[in-house]
């Protein structure tokens, strides 16, 4: 039997890095969001009910018939050659040309984040990320005791000018720059071509590694694709004098959003010396990625058109995004602003700064609806007035109803604040949320944050 005393005894054995690995009040709140009656706009789940069961059956049948022993066996750490060929095909679809030898197959994209951080970061090293950043990256950076510096974004992605200022100011060289340039999670915005070019130039000028996380690039609902940083790094940019021959962009890809997150299959492309270290890191973590999953991908790519499936997802998600944007316009009060993603899975909404979205979540859960409070996308307590809304995992009807309920709760709080302060249409946000204002990704300024009431830093 474990007693509280025993637990305290174990506490003395925990590594220092576990001090930052803790569950949070918000995560405890999230436990309620999994209840069946809750409309959850909180998850980041693709809709796997869209995958044809017949195809799944045929794929597994074929593996059983043709490569049973292989599927049940360990595989090479870098992944099966067949799988890496499939990955090269997927990257090719986004304009990247990659040598399969530069690839390592991982257990989901999340493992790439873990392995890259494990390979590069000592405690106290600086990692640069976007603000807001992928909430799932936060615990990874924390676990390796990285100092994370978050660079603000606007409608065109990371403010690369602010990045340069930050790099000038920093006293040490960051170990890498983490970015989700296309349909960012959670921001929903996409980095402009000019900024992409400049970012890759900066990486070369300053010899900095960039980790490009691109789970959503193929889920584009409008407009023309932009070249991934990896493509710009590998021959896409005009050869500048003195430019290094090997690249500085590491690329993270995943089958989670274009096929299935359940198969846990991702990959990383990186410069040779870095990839070698990552390979060693993976050996100690899990030896190899599931052979069964890798063969499933290979069999699926041979049997069916993965591009057709992605096209069907794009149709479904586009309609759901439109539903969410329409519902936001109808039900959110004028003091709210939100992004209009051209792809991906998320909308990022920002409310007046007197609303704390973690508290709002508690209120929303009473009405059986959930979202991710913005706080989880920052490491420094920012984002408290923002929220991430997912539109891929719910039906149009659920999205409309969910947004209506959240909108009602927000309106209620806006009115209450107005009553409390004597200003009926209370808003501290100066920019109106018109068509143009809605395209930006507003972040609280430090001065605004200081004015905020609220729990504690």
């Amino acid at each position, binding site marked *: *039997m*474990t*007693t*509280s*005393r025993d*637990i*305290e005894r*174990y*506490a003395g054995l*925990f590594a220092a890095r*576990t*001090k930052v690995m*803790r*569950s*949070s*009040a918000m*995560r*405890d*709140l999230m*436990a*309620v969001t999994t*209840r069946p*009656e809750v409309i959850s706009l909180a998850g980041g789940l693709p809709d796997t009910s869209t995958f044809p069961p017949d195809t799944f059956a045929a794929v597994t049948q074929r593996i059983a018939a043709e490569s049973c022993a292989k599927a049940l066996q360990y595989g090479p750490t870098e992944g099966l050659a067949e799988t890496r060929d499939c990955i090269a095909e997927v990257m090719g679809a986004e304009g990247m040309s990659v040598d399969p030898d530069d690839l390592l197959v991982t257990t989901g994209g999340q493992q790439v984040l873990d392995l890259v951080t494990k390979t590069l970061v000592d405690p106290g090293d600086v990692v640069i990320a976007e603000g807001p950043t992928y909430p799932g990256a936060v615990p990874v950076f924390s676990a390796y005791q990285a100092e994370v510096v978050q660079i603000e974004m606007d409608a065109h992605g990371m403010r690369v000018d602010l990045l340069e200022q930050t790099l000038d100011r920093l006293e040490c060289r960051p170990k890498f720059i983490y970015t989700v340039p296309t349909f960012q999670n959670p921001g929903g915005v996409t980095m402009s071509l000019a900024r992409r070019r400049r970012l890759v130039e900066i990486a070369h000028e300053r010899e900095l590694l960039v980790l490009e996380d691109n789970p959503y690039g193929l889920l584009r609902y409008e407009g023309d694709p932009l070249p991934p940083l990896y493509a710009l790094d590998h021959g896409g940019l005009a050869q500048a004098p003195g430019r290094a021959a090997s690249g500085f962009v590491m690329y993270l890809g995943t089958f989670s959003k274009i096929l299935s997150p359940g198969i846990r299959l991702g990959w990383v492309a990186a410069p040779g010396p870095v990839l070698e270290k990552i390979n060693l890191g993976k050996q100690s973590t899990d030896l190899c990625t599931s052979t069964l999953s890798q063969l499933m991908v290979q069999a699926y790519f041979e049997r069916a058109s993965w591009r057709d499936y992605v096209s069907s997802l794009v149709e479904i998600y586009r309609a759901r995004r439109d539903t969410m944007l329409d519902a936001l316009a109808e039900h959110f009060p004028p003091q709210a602003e939100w992004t209009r993603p051209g792809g991906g899975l998320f909308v990022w909404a920002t409310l007046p700064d*007197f*609303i*704390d979205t973690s*508290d*709002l979540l*508690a*209120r929303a*859960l009473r009405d059986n609806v959930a979202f991710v409070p913005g706080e989880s996308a920052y490491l420094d307590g920012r984002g408290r007035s923002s929220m991430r809304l997912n539109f891929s995992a719910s039906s149009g009807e659920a999205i409309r109803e969910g947004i209506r309920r959240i909108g009602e709760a927000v309106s209620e*709080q806006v*009115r*209450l*604040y107005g*009553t*409390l*302060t*004597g200003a009926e249409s209370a808003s501290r946000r100066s920019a109106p949320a018109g068509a143009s204002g809605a395209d930006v990704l507003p972040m609280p300024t430090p001065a605004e944050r200081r*004015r*905020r*009431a*609220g*729990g*504690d830093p």
Partner: protein
Amino acid sequence: MTRIAVLKGGRSLERQVSLRSGARVEDALARLGHEVVPIDAGLDLIRRLRAAAPDLAFIAMHGRDGEDGTVQELLEILDVPYTGSGVLACTRAMDKVLAKGLMVEAGIPTPEFFAFSETAFRELGAAEALPAIEERLDFPIVVKPSSGGSALGIKFARTAADVPASLVAAFSYDSRVLLERHVAGRDLAVSILDGRSLPVVEAVPREEEFYDFEARYEIGRTDFVCPAELTTGVAERAHELAIRVWELLGLSGFARIDLMLAEDGELTVLEANAIPGLTDTSLLPMAAETDGIGFDELIGMIVELAPRPAAY
């Protein structure tokens, strides 16, 4: 052997903690030789209770529904005996405004406070009374929802400008909130088992300025000292106050009373918890252990103490 339904989880914001409490209780009950029926309280609660036909329900739920008398009421209707306090005592303990009001009436010291409903602001212009309250309580003022055993929704307003947003936050959790004088000092908890107070636990936050929701349940963020290092006089006074609150609210079985020991040595009662946590890091099991009562024994005693349903 007794068939015991362990009620846990539910829709409360403290669901996660409750699931942990429930799991520990289930293990202990099984070791004690009982037949355990775990039930995550949801829409099918009544149906599952009827199907299980337990001899007893062990309520390991915290916060809304489990700790506020709701589930207790349902069990009364179903004629299923249950652990802990009855409907009325739960209702009184969960409602901080009511509990503190009763304490004031009984002469039990509790930090000065003012309570408001949302309608007071919406329909009666209560906002105009805020400056007078702020002057009376001094900053920082603690703003908290009336219900809820955890620190969720509790805010510190450091200046008048912080008060409106703090109120908006607290109203996210309850339609009634209170503004309370902040007492700086030491966090004490007195657990009570069958009307007897157990050794005092002191929670010493390691870094945070505020003893927050997370720290309560996490290892390594708060040091718990049991028995707390107190003078005999202060310890006795803490026990006395806790027992008076226990009796005042009509609690039974087990409970935890939270107090503050101010720098000037004054003790005040913050709140009473009808179903305190039973997790690995919870204070009641810790106090019991210090008193020589192991976890299994504690759970066994709580089961033994469960009354037969009675009129209330």
